[in-house]
């Protein structure tokens, strides 16, 4: 389809471009201007940006289809303007065999919607004991290797995994948390957990584990991306690690960027998250870290959970929240709070995320994949179970009025979503 997008405010964080104009799409790529397009989208009043790249979205397939399906979650992604997503390996069974990864890729491709980038399991069954066949998993389509939220307490295994991955240049994505210190905990170990009588996870559970991995990065030179930082101390460690020139990057989830343990209120199970929501000080440090670039990206950490999983006492509730459709409005909210330009704000879910993921999308240059999201940055959206396309209706942001509504989503030049 030869398509033209007219009168848009074009924002391309990769090049710094921000101005009104037209975009042309041909053969699935962004192209030079041409005459007689087959379709013209009038994007007056809309921003045209590279399709968003979400570094953590659980699609729940295979195995957990009762919580969500590829169809429902891909629809949610497109409604949120997300055109590429990385999915963690904690499916059932985990993504530890090339066959499973291949099947997921095929299923996703058949739906011809958002681009799905599977992250393979770092260890067999995520048990933290034996390495997976990383080379074969890479051939099957894995872009990185991770333990998702499963612990890897054995530092010998962690060291060997990083050595092996470094040998072949495979990126390793880790959410660091000391398994012993976190054992039994369900909330940030602070005043709120003390008041509510909830077992705590101390902030140093994250920083101790992060410091351990940084030492192993120094030893192995493995490329490590740290997922969903939650503490001020972790931001501090990352700042120093980057200054030192280590091959590391990191992200923060939308929840930890905006919420803190005070939001637990009276045991709100929608705030049962991994890692736990931490203190206001931690949240502020993450927000600042994202602004200065110490934290590279923001992700939705999309984890659909059904009502049965959430209608339980806080500690027994399943961790996670739906997020794909909140990624844009909550990233915009962060940008407004920090008084950033739209281009700088959007960089964290486009160009910067593409760099971490190692893909060619996330920019609007001529010849780049035509993954484009058109949105109205001022239009309000009310977050409610009725408006969410995801099968997961649980989020701490239910009832929020946020700004930023997606009108069109294009993947490889095809209009795959229209509001």
């Amino acid at each position, binding site marked *: 389809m030869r398509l033209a997008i007219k009168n848009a405010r074009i924002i391309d964080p990769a090049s710094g471009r921000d101005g009104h104009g037209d975009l042309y799409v041909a053969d699935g790529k962004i192209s030079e201007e041409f005459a007689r397009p087959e379709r013209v989208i009038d994007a007056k009043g809309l921003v045209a940006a590279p399709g968003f790249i979400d570094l953590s979205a659980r699609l729940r397939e295979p195995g957990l289809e009762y919580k969500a399906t590829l169809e429902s979650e891909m629809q949610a992604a497109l409604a949120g303007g997300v055109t590429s997503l990385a999915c963690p390996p904690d499916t059932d069974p985990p993504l530890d065999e090339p066959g499973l990864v291949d099947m997921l890729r095929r299923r996703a491709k058949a739906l011809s919607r958002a681009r799905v980038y599977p992250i393979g399991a770092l260890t067999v069954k995520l048990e933290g004991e034996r390495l997976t066949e990383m080379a074969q998993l890479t051939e099957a389509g894995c872009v990185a290797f991770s333990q998702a939220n499963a612990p890897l307490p054995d530092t010998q295994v962690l060291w060997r995994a990083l050595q092996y991955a470094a040998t072949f240049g495979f990126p390793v994505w880790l959410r660091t948390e000391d398994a012993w210190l976190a054992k039994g905990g369900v909330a940030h*170990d*602070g*005043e709120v*957990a*003390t*008041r*509510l*009588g*909830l*077992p*705590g996870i*101390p902030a140093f559970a994250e920083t101790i584990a992060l410091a351990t991995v940084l030492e192993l990065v120094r030893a192995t030179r493995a490329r490590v991306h740290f997922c969903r930082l939650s503490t001020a101390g972790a931001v501090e460690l990352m700042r120093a690690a980057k200054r030192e020139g280590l091959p590391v990057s990191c992200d923060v989830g939308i929840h930890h960027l905006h919420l803190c343990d005070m939001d637990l*209120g*009276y*045991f709100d*199970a929608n705030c049962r998250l991994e890692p736990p929501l931490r203190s206001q000080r931690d949240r502020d440090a993450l927000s600042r870290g994202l602004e200065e670039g110490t934290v590279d990206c923001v992700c939705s950490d999309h984890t659909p959970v059904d009502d*049965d999983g959430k*209608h*339980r*006492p*806080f*500690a*027994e509730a399943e961790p996670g929240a739906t997020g794909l459709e909140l990624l844009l409005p909550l990233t915009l909210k962060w940008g407004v709070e920090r008084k950033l330009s739209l281009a700088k704000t959007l960089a964290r879910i486009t160009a910067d995320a593409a760099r971490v993921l190692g893909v060619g999308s996330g920019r609007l240059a001529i010849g780049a994949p035509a993954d484009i999201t058109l949105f109205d940055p001022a239009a309000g959206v009310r977050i409610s179970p009725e408006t969410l396309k995801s099968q997961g209706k649980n989020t701490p942001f239910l009832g929020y009025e946020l700004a930023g509504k997606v009108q069109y989503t294009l993947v490889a030049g095809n209009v795959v979503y229209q509001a």
Partner: protein
Amino acid sequence: MERNPQLNAKGELQHLLSTEGLPPEILTQILDTAESFVGVTEREVKKVPLLRGKSVFNLFFEPSTRTRTTFEIAAKRLSADVINLNIAVSSQSKGESLLDTVANLSAMQADIFVVRHASSGAPFLIARHVKPHEHVVNAGDGRHAHPTQGLLDLFTIRHYKKDFSRLTVAIIGDVLHSRVARSLIHGLTTLGAPQVRVIGPQTLLPVGVEALGVKVFHDMREGLRDADVVVMLRLQSERMKGALLPSAQEYFKHYGLTLDKLSLARPDAIVMHPGPMNRGVEIDSSVADGPHSVILPQVTFGIAVRMAVMSIVAGN
């Protein structure tokens, strides 16, 4: 943040879930009402018809004999019908969810659910899902709250010390795992006790406990100095299995209440314990059975306090 889920739209007590966030007027109302019931419990015919025709369901998801019995006695003295359910050994083991259990019992026309659960916050979840005419009374949830125990402690303190405005209260022991301590602390700070102290080793005091309005002591002798009220907490034997404490003997040496240590408190100090006691672990028998001890009166007052709570919520 949502409205305090314990109060109805008029600000009256709909459920009793925690002593935290309750206005002093409501705490005082409960204590005053309990005062009027102390007489009832001493009469030959120990019954008043306030809850006649009402059903009280004792929902115990965690085993307990003492608390369940006192709630049962209190409900019966209010002329309610009492149904005891030990769910720890029935439907939960069959995989039924907490809310399904409650919905089923609700269909049997319950008026008051008395709930004990091992998970902090469970009674809040139930309160959010019951019908408007049903009331939830928290009989202990995880480490979070045990409000009727906190209230009976307040009642006992008021009974012996008349008012809270000059008191120094020392709470000693395993505050980390204690719902009793949390409920008492909130009650005392709400009613204006000027100094509430917690005493224990770092391993048994939760992070940021000072934010509850207490002063922290690790040296028991220092913490007991001039205390008017001494509250001992139960130390469960499983605390010695992890890395929290080396042994019961060593704990008793530093944090057990003996006559010698008690002599540092005020001469008219009272000694309380929520029970069941571990003699020789947190408290010496000479203190438990001595003249300062008000441990048995606490149990008696507990019935009057639970009568007060049930009659107040049922009336709102």
